[in-house]
């Protein structure tokens, strides 16, 4: 049971010494069990905030956020998250970063080591086991963050622009890996991105958000559920879907831009 529901959720940031910001306004959204949902929207529209509420990191002050029908009251290992800026522990090596979550899960030592090795291979970081994050490139750090979250095999995967720092080639590889992982161990995924093609390629549905205060503007079915693969991106249907979403996003991006000036 991993269905997710946002009902009329609003969120206001109240920084101690500046004006409050209404980041989300009455957002309602349902994510079906084992669905891959992409959240698409201009920067500053509240995508991360939505994810933090679902992760249980921020208190739900208005509306309701539920997972499998139960209100979210705090973080839990059922929801694994990949943070936007990696959030690796800089004093731990790649291997130690990946092991941390497994230690918290009280897995037997041999099992932890096995899984850590497996994940390091999966994200192509073999040989960097004992490197510290400061010694890695942005793309490598991002892959460590993904490996760390996947290691504990959460039923729900929250990803905040997880491939943003990767070069196009690595990103394409990571797309395939992610899809393969989900095929092997089905998960409910909420995937934040501002890359329209990435959203169409990975997701079953794409929720387009409006500029601040964030609301859900439209939810688009991609309709490619069964046929994901590199061949898909060359098809007419894919191009049309991307075009359609671009039109939706463009207006919001311009709005977000003018508002910043």
């Amino acid at each position, binding site marked *: 049971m991993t269905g997710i529901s946002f009902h009329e959720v609003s969120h206001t940031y109240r920084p101690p010494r500046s004006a409050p910001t209404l980041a989300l306004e009455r957002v309602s959204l349902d994510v079906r069990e084992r669905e891959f949902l992409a959240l698409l929207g201009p920067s500053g529209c509240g995508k991360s905030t939505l994810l*933090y509420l679902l*992760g*249980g*990191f921020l208190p739900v002050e208005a509306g309701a956020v539920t997972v499998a029908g139960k209100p979210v009251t*705090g*973080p*839990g*290992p059922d*929801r*694994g*998250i990949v*943070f936007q*800026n990696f*959030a690796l*522990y*800089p*004093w*731990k*090596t790649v291997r130690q970063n990946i092991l*941390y*979550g497994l230690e*918290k*899960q009280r897995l037997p030592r041999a099992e932890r080591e096995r899984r850590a090795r497996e994940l390091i291979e999966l994200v192509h970081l073999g040989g960097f086991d004992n490197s*510290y*994050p*400061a*010694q890695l490139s942005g793309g490598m750090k991002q892959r460590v963050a993904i490996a760390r979250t996947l290691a*504990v095999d959460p039923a729900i995967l929250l990803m905040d622009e997880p491939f943003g720092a990767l070069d196009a080639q690595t990103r394409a590889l990571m797309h395939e890996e992610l899809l393969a992982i989900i095929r092997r161990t089905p998960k409910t995924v909420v995937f934040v991105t501002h890359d329209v093609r990435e959203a169409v390629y990975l997701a079953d549905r794409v929720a387009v958000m409006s500029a601040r205060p964030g609301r859900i503007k439209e939810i688009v079915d991609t309709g490619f559920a069964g046929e994901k693969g590199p061949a898909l991106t060359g098809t007419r249907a894919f191009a049309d879907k991307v075009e359609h979403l671009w039109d939706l996003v463009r207006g919001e991006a311009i709005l977000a831009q003018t508002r910043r000036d």
Partner: protein
Amino acid sequence: MRSAVVRYSPLLLLAIAWEAVPRLGLVDPDTLPPLSAVLRAWIGLLRDGDLAVNGLSSLQNLTAGLVLAIVVGVALGVLMAWYWPVEVLVNPLVRILYPLPRSALIPVMILWFGLGAASKIAAVFLGCLLPVVIGAFNGARGVEQVLIWSARAAGATSLEVLREVVVPAAMPEILAGIRNALALSFILLVAAELLISQRGMGYLISSFGEAGAYDAMFAGVLTVSAVGFFADRLYLLVMGWALRWRG
């Protein structure tokens, strides 16, 4: 190699001047014995065991006071950053006490804890506490929110988050605070021993001074300075190793 020579050349010049100035009669050799006489006195102190007995005593009290200050200081600083009631209670005290001249504590400690080791340890402890508290507080307060969230999501308890995330993330500031405390510990211990004591390097220095054995007195001063200098060098090495992850 060359850089080491350049770096320590002022020290060499100082040593030459120290030897030359009293020998040339520019100052009274009683007030400033030449370096060679001081070194001869130093070897004498080493032979009699004066240096071992007093040096060991000082080192013990310094270590006890410093370790106590580190343990209590880190705990207090981290708790201040973590639980606001602790901050409300402790932070004003820290601010008020920080500018207080630390050596002013020494007579009070002697009054409370007597003439022996306890008052020396207490003076070092209290004098070194605040830099450690402030380092730990600043470090712990600056920990990135997502690092804490990340640990919570993995299933860490509050205590585990403190121990496994907050303290290591604050380590650069904690270690910098301890370095300040290390320098202060030498000052406080010797000052306390100079004031009143029956043992220790400060005792050695003051008793030779009173007896007019100035070469031995200078040997004591030189020893304390050298140990302080090398302790700091050694500490920097350890700090570099502990923070090797900073790349």
